[in-house]
């Protein structure tokens, strides 16, 4: 195995251009599980943790190398909430938001928030420079994304106007150190419109657009609107049955969770 340990982004892009498809290593919390279980044996690794410019938070631009431990203290409320649910302190000290984006697991804890705030994923390559892809163009399937073999994830860029009334929660088989069976994020604007995103219920994070439209029409929802909101969310997701949960439970829980988060936003 060969390894590059660049200290600048341009060195990393050089290495990636020379070795397209080389495994990118950030905190190691996903890649090393696959290595330890014999699912992956990388021939070439580009280790990213020495690149200071990836580890910066600059306003609404969150560097790919920023760890969950740092994001626990983020000003973005739901981002801080979800960061606290990632693994254990040890995992949060190592794992990064860029790694979460790169792995593109349907259960990635950061993904519903990125979807709810309409984040752009900034990627870069030596030959084509910087590209910014809306989250929905970046995440393309289960552990699949639009990152080209010569590109590196640089940052998540959040629109300036994102409301701070936001809530995240996830459901798992126990209350800590767990991969989510359903996760959700709700962001509510001052005008009463909401964005509703869910994770672990489709190949990629998804927005519940019909449920969002329902609240746009009813910004002060009555009990019956809230019930319809939950029902609509349940209909909009497309979960599967697997070793963690069933399709019907995930569908039901999606509605319950989204409604609960909406009610928390409404109570503020």
């Amino acid at each position: 195995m060969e390894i590059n340990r660049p200290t600048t982004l341009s060195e990393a892009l050089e290495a990636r251009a020379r070795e397209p498809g080389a495994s990118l290593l950030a905190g190691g919390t996903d890649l090393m599980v696959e290595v330890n279980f014999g699912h992956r044996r990388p021939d070439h690794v580009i280790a990213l943790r020495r690149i200071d410019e990836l580890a910066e938070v600059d306003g609404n631009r969150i560097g790919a190398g920023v760890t969950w431990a740092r994001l626990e203290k983020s000003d973005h409320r739901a981002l801080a909430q979800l960061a606290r649910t990632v693994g254990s302190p040890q995992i949060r000290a190592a794992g990064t938001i860029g790694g979460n984006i790169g792995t593109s697991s349907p259960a990635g804890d950061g993904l519903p928030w990125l979807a709810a705030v309409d984040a752009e994923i900034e990627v870069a390559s030596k030959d084509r420079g910087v590209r910014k892809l809306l989250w929905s163009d970046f995440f393309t399937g289960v552990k699949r994304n639009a990152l080209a073999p010569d590109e590196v994830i640089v940052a998540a860029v959040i629109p300036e106007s994102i409301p701070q009334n936001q809530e995240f929660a996830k459901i798992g088989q126990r209350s800590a150190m767990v991969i989510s069976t359903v996760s959700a994020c709700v962001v509510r604007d001052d005008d009463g419109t909401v964005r509703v995103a869910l994770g672990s219920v489709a190949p990629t994070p998804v927005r519940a657009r019909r449920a969002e439209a329902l609240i746009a029409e009813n910004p002060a929802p009555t009990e019956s609107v809230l019930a319809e909101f939950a029902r609509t969310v349940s209909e909009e997701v497309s979960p599967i049955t697997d070793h963690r949960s069933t399709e019907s439970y995930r569908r039901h829980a999606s509605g319950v969770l989204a409604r609960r988060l909406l009610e928390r936003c409404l109570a503020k």
Partner: protein
Amino acid sequence: MIVNFNVNGESRVANVAGSESLLQVLREELGLPGSKNACEQGECGSCSVVLDGAVVTSCLVMAADCEGSEIATVEGIGSERELHAVQQALVDHGAVQCGFCTPGFVVTAAHLFEENPHPGTDEIKEALSGNICRCTGYGAILRSLEALAEETT
């Protein structure tokens, strides 16, 4: 490939074959078996070490990525003549179950007390949350560290 890093204050050189973990290199190459190999997926915390100032699970650290790093393992905490305050507290309270997870608890707790000599119960629980996996018997560990936090107040 040759990787140079510092373990417990000593410069060490490891011959790393491929993508193996820091845990494997510590145990198999460097003769430091205190960090335990159990889940290999970062869940149990029994392989916890301090890497460049943060407690991490060494099973999820690629050894080849440790060039130039500072690593502290359980072997560097206390000595046979004089136990670290955390180790003494665990002994005093009989805070051990089968003992396999104990090195990880020692590393995590020693780091916690270095950063915060007077942690509250919630802070202790939060810090140890990555070392608690499936056993019972964590009450004595918690009580021992609560007592230590009070002692140093």
